[in-house]
């Protein structure tokens, strides 16, 4: 039986109070006061859609034997690469086998559920098993636009398989329309929208019910069968209207997290779905609907296995790990909307030699080092000759992954000279509990909060952006270990 075997979620640590944005830009569009409530989740300067998808994927893979994973399906409309498989980068970062299937799903923001359907049907057809479906977006609204306030950044991931299913797949119904509520052209940075009234009254109010009715007819289920209904719609009044029209009670209505995160695009219905799964009981049925160039509607039934999942951050845990981004212009710099001067040093030109990255792909993207089979010493980066001076064995190494290890801060600094859009650049030596050490950049923390001896974990981040050549480069950074909610 195909279904969801595991889930994970990721909401970036930084939250931008919408009132702060309105205070800076409201003069240009006073009507935006309607969207100025709550806060939006904002990717850190070193995060993008890929890094958020990796974070959600790592969360979803907790308790899953990675060697059983057969595929990675990635959905996003803000993939860093148009050509170069984004899911391939995610696969390497997740430390998965090379011999699996990976695909990118993009275009309309219903692509998240479409990727999920492809995985469910692939598993049902026994063509593939244990597929990591991950979706993320990092969409930009132009300063002073409603979208700037409405949009937020997040990611969700689901492992789809046939064994130990926590939510069985009960059926799906899809529609596809070239209904253009938002769009982004080939070179555009910002989303463009048509009139809200039209999106609301023709888009949500007609397309969502059509998909829901189609699913109910196909599966023979009724609205009252569902413990939770997940559908995206950030218009408060339209959402109330839809609930009434579809017969969704307040108990059934899964929060769209607009006040806490914002409208996240491709991952949005999956983010809501993960939140629903976190709170679900065995026997609960969940209706999952996406929206964007049509709709996918999917029905699930939660099983007893849901209680057996290993602890994870998911959406609730990552929402609890929050820090104010107390500066709107910092957001503009991080997203490269406002040109800022990081100094001449930032203009030094080093370029990615793809052949080097190919050779080093396991250690760079997957944080694989080596473990000496002669003396047991683990070491990063990969070595051929053991670094232990008492050993020195040559070519007796096996691979060893540092990406899931816990370390301690041995030394650190906050560097104001280094070129950074988030100075000071914080970095230091990390000694891993099980051996090995490396000097990492630190992220998602403040200098004042650090101390030697503090435990850290590693997080996959954007290391550099080569604007001359349109390259996003990735590596791992250290993050203070925080208790998961």
């Amino acid at each position, binding site marked *: 039986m195909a279904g969801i075997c595991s889930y994970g979620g990721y909401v970036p640590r930084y939250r931008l109070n919408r009132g702060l944005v309105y205070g800076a830009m409201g003069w240009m569009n006073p009507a935006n006061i309607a969207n100025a409530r709550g806060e939006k989740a904002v990717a850190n300067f070193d995060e993008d859609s890929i890094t958020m998808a990796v974070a959600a994927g790592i969360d979803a893979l907790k308790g899953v034997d990675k060697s059983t994973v057969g595929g990675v399906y990635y959905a996003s409309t803000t993939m860093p690469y148009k050509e170069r498989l984004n899911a391939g980068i995610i696969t390497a970062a997740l430390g998965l086998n090379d011999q699996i299937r990976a695909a990118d799903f993009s275009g309309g923001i219903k692509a998240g559920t479409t990727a999920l359907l492809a995985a469910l049907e692939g598993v049902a057809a026994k063509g593939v098993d244990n597929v990591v479906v991950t979706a993320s977006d990092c969409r930009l609204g132009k300063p002073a636009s409603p979208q700037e306030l409405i949009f937020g950044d997040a990611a969700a991931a689901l492992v789809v398989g046939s064994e130990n299913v926590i939510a069985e797949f009960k059926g799906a119904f899809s529609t596809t329309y070239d209904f253009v509520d938002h769009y982004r052209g080939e070179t555009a940075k910002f989303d463009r929208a048509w009139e809200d009234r039209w999106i609301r009254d023709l888009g949500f109010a007609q397309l969502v019910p059509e998909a829901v009715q189609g699913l109910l007819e196909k599966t023979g289920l009724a609205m009252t069968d569902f413990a939770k209904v997940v559908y995206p719609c950030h218009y408060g009044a339209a959402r109330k209207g839809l609930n009434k029209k579809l017969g969704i009670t307040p108990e059934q209505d899964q929060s769209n997290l607009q006040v806490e995160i914002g409208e996240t695009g491709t991952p949005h219905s999956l983010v809501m779905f993960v939140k629903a799964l976190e709170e679900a009981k065995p026997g609960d049925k969940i209706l999952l609907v996406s929206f964007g160039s049509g709709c996918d509607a999917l029905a699930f039934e939660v099983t007893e296995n849901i209680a057996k999942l290993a602890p994870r951050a998911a959406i609730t845990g990552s929402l609890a790990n929050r820090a104010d981004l107390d500066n709107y212009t910092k957001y503009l710099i991080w997203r490269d909307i406002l040109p800022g001067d990081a100094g001449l040093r930032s203009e030094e030109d080093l370029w990615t030699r793809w052949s*080097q990255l190919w050779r080093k792909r396991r250690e760079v993207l997957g944080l694989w080092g080596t473990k000496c089979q002669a003396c047991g010493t683990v070491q990063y980066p990969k070595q051929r000759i053991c670094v232990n001076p008492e050993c020195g064995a040559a070519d007796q190494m096996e691979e060893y992954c540092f990406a899931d290890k816990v370390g301690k801060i041995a*030394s650190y600094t906050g560097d104001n000279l280094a070129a950074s859009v988030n100075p000071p650049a914080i970095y230091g030596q990390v000694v891993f509990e099980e051996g090995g050490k490396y000097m990492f950049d630190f992220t998602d923390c403040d200098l004042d909060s650090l101390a030697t001896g503090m435990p850290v974990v590693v997080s996959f981040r954007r290391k550099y952006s080569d604007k001359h050549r349109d390259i996003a480069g990735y590596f791992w950074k250290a993050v203070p270990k925080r208790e998961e909610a």
Partner: protein
Amino acid sequence: MADGIRDKVAILGMGCTKFGERWDCSGEDLMVESFLECLADAGIEKKEIQAAYFGVHIDEVNVGKAGTPLGAALKLPFIPITRTENFCATATEAFRAATYAVASGAYDIVLALGVEKLKDTGYGGLPGGAAFGTEMFLRGSNATAPGLFAQLATAYAAKYNIPMEKIKDAIAHVSAKSHFNGAMNPKAHLRKAVPEEAIKAAPMIAYPLGLFDCCGVSDGSAAAIVTTPEIAKSLKPNQDIIKVKALQISVSSGEEETYTNWDGAHFATTRVAATKAYEEAGIKNPREEVSMMEVHDCFSITEFVTMEDVHISPKGGAYEDVMNGFYDLKGGGVPCQVDGGLKCFGHPIGASGLRMIYAMYEQLLERVPEERAVKNARCGLTHNLGGTPAKNVAAISIIGRD
């Protein structure tokens, strides 16, 4: 069994430019300047130089690779010239190569010259570049030199459980001492005394290092002409002969960076190089026998921990010695940075090793004014440390008069 370099080679002459922001000079101009002083001091003609070693490090603002820049700038007549490069020990490597060339008997008179023209980058500090290989760009942290060395402070504080305020006091004294010494030196880059309170209050460059904890980034060049002690005596019968007592280099094996036995609070390479240098020079008790030092004070914390790594302060004892003035010019046991150090004399990477030896040489020949002279100096030690605290090259040279 090899018996080392001790007493096999003498310094015939030295030269050093003023270090600083030499906006009007190219690297080639600086080479000519140090060379002409060196040649005049040696009292020989250019055609008597039989071979040369040329130190230059930074490729981003460079006179060029190989030996040709030296031959062309100085118009040396078709002699063998080899470029040496080993981070901040680059000029010491040129000196070491020249010395070994004489000691081997291959040549009688050899030139070593180092230069760096750093002020053409357009910013403070050193270029990042690909000093650790182009693959490091894929996984190395967004680090600069001050940030890498600043970590010595957090690691040292943790190791010895010393509050950061006390470390700030000690490293402020380290920098104030160099400013005091440098202020008296007309060739130094930074020539102003700065009180410790101002040093501690300076803007942060890389926690916990402030502006005054960082050395000057300068243009400059220094040179030496070496020969055998016999030739030196014949050419300069009325002058003390300054002999090379030890030259040692220690290069990281990767242990500090990759193995967990390194505490991050000291330089493993310096300890090894110093031990071997004392052995080579026949020094049993460095705290008593070393008259003065120029050590690699790229940052105040570097000098602070180096006082232990050169085996003069006991482990964990640098704080006491620094605060007690043991390394001060006047009244100190082993005056350190007598010409201002990298901190104030300046740090053009490819020239610094020879600049340090020049400072010792001038003191040993009693050519410095009374106000900054080290009394009865018999033996001077210089130390370079290039690379990062976790992966570096340490060089120690000891010169002396008998």
